[in-house]
């Protein structure tokens, strides 16, 4: 009897493994999170997640209202309102689709709606391109969205669960967008451990909107005209929520490790071969794969190069990152994005990294910015070696152009 019970328990807690894509992993996370309302609208490459959701619903594996909207603006507005009524929601988009929803994206954090969205990062039009660029998700960086970039299928699944846990925490109530590089992650398969429902239930409490619930039993007025009387105080509350997110994310990762036995180390950024590194490269998303390969090759040649992969872009762990980066002689930031006319004509990420380093008391290593991999162009091993070379020169005090386009046809 006792033995049978033990075996039965084990069976429930055993993680299944499956060969799935990044998009499918997020759909599986939605199923495990028992999401109530999901809205879809087609745009490549994110939309594969909705194809999987559709199948899960059609096969009776998932119980949710699955609505195909008539445009991204409606897609995001529908789930915004569903969340205000206490439903756990999921949504997503890519590229200009995400931009089409911009008004809805603007009001969602302002209303303290914990929506989870997948961004299958895609170049903005024009010219049309299906490949990855990070400007879509980055467009909401100032609005109160929590932004996280993942680089593999397992991390996509796990981060989606973590995102629900953080976003729906009453101390936060802010939306979170999970960025998965278009094609490189959305459409690539890998073997993934799928957590058991029991463990997910232990990790992720039900969404409780509390006294902010829109319901006849709680007749509140949501989002009235604030005007000059109150807008500043309301903005300050969002500021405070984002400030708290830093701690709540740490809590969630610690609990994730305790319950699922899988650790991500520092939640905010991953460090690769940095312990003895002279210089580091820093970037987000799947370019990590070729960077890591290049680093292993360069190390065979005696070049001690490390890599920092930013996971959470909002909140941005500035102090922690600055402290880490000050250990190195020079830093190369790899931007898979652009910010035309910005300081030194660099990308978004480089600006953030320089910003993080500037106020600190420690040393300020030179930061070289590389814009590459736009529109889905591959970031190759020779590209990475070229970047490292320039960063080494900067470390030696040789002036380098502050912003360099890498892999560009001349």
């Amino acid at each position, binding site marked *: 009897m006792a033995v049978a019970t033990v075996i039965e328990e084990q069976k429930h807690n055993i993680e299944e493994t499956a060969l799935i894509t990044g998009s499918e992993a997020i759909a599986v996370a939605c199923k495990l999170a028992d999401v109530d309302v999901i809205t879809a609208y087609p745009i490549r490459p994110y939309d594969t997640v909705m194809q999987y959701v559709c199948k899960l619903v059609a096969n009776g594996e998932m*119980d949710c209202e699955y609505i195909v909207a008539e445009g991204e*603006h409606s897609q995001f*507005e529908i789930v915004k309102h569903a969340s205000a*009524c*206490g439903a756990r929601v999921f949504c997503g988009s890519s590229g200009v689709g995400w931009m089409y929803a911009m008004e809805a994206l603007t009001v969602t954090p302002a209303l303290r709606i914990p929506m989870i969205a997948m961004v299958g990062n895609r170049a903005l039009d024009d010219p049309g391109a299906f490949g990855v660029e990070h400007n879509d998700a980055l467009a909401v960086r100032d609005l109160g969205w929590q932004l996280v970039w993942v680089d593999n299928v397992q991390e996509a699944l796990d981060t989606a669960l973590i995102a629900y846990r953080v976003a729906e925490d009453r101390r936060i109530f802010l939306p979170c967008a999970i960025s998965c590089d278009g094609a490189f992650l959305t459409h690539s398969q890998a073997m993934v451990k799928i957590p058991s429902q029991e463990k997910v239930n232990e990790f992720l409490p039900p969404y409780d909107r509390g006294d902010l619930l829109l319901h006849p039993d709680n*007749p509140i007025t*949501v989002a009235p005209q604030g005007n000059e009387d109150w807008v500043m105080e309301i903005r300050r509350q969002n500021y405070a929520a984002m400030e708290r997110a830093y701690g709540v994310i740490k809590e969630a990762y610690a609990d994730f490790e305790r319950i699922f036995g899988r650790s991500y180390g520092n939640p905010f950024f991953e460090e690769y071969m940095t312990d003895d590194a002279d210089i580091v490269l820093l970037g987000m998303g799947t370019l990590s794969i070729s960077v890591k390969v290049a680093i292993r090759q360069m190390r065979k040649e005696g070049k001690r190069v490390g890599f920092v992969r930013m996971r959470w872009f909002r909140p941005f762990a500035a102090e922690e990152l600055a402290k880490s980066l000050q250990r190195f002689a020079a830093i190369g930031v790899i931007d898979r994005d652009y910010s035309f006319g910005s300081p030194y004509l660099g990308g978004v990420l480089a600006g953030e990294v320089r910003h993080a380093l500037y106020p600190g008391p420690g040393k300020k290593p030179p930061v070289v910015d590389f814009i590459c991999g736009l529109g889905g162009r591959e970031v190759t091993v020779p590209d990475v070696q070229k970047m490292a070379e320039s960063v080494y020169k900067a470390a030696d005090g040789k002036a380098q152009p502050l912003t360099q386009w890498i892999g560009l046809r001349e």
Partner: protein
Amino acid sequence: MDTYVQIDPTQKLDPFKAVKKIPLEEYFTSGHRTCQGCESALVMKMMAKAAGPRTIVLGSTGCMYVANTTYYSTSWVLPWMHTQLGSSGSAALGTAAALKALMRKGKMKQEPINVIAFCGDGGGADMGVGAISATLTHPDYNCLILMYDNESYANTDIQLSGSTPWGANTTFSSPGKVKRIMHRRWKKNMAGMMAAGHPTCRYVSTVCMSYGLAAMNSMRKALAIGGPTFIHSLDPCPKGWDYDPYISHELGELAVNTGIWPLYEVEDGVLRLTGRTQQIAAKKIQRQPVRDYLLKQGRFAHFTNDDIDYFQSKIDEMWEKWLVPGVIPFRTEVEADAPPA
């Protein structure tokens, strides 16, 4: 068994038999700052009464958002939430979907809750028409979209919308020395479009608060019938139409009696003209000349006799040439159209 459409139970909302049977309880009350003579505020008040306390209201940007819900002084006794200008359809759909999912999954107590999303003519006939149209194609979500039409963007300074009548003076169509008629588009036929374009939508109607009891009963029918529904209300607006607030009610009556605003309902695809419109169609009463309606409003003060005649000819067309008079502008033959120069 699997069924294609799964409509949840709705509230039983029988028509009010007479004005005195309307409940005294107010769900849209003091605290708003709408203009004197505002018919749209009356729509809100009567809509809330018609729906009753177990209702969620979503309000898209417009007068009835800005004037009614100043922070710390909301006039809503019902739960109310703002939605974006073009989002009344999405707000209704999202709210109804959440209630449906949460109740089915046992996460919320089972009960029929009315969902109403309102929009103005700017939010409805212009920006939000796509989202409203989409929502009306979702047969299994119970919600009402109510468009209060004061025929301009009345909150932002009286700019013309797709629902502004031909020739009207708005701040985006003010007459000048060379051009008298700056607004040369005919008013969109929203209710007709919604009814004709959405074959599974079970209820579409036009109302006017000059006939309040009928309007409230139409709202109750729209909420009780099941599935998404649409009501278009014509609301005289003293500020936008430029008239003395005390004739708001009279202007609503004139709109119906001149035939410019036909009252009708389309229930499960069956068209029924209602109120005075029914009598006009049955030739029991004569349409009043539209001149009586136009000349009471400052927004038409620049009209010449030719303009008024042209306007009248377009209304005559609605009743004499349209295949479904007053409702659907299909014809059997091509008609020439010659607006005044």
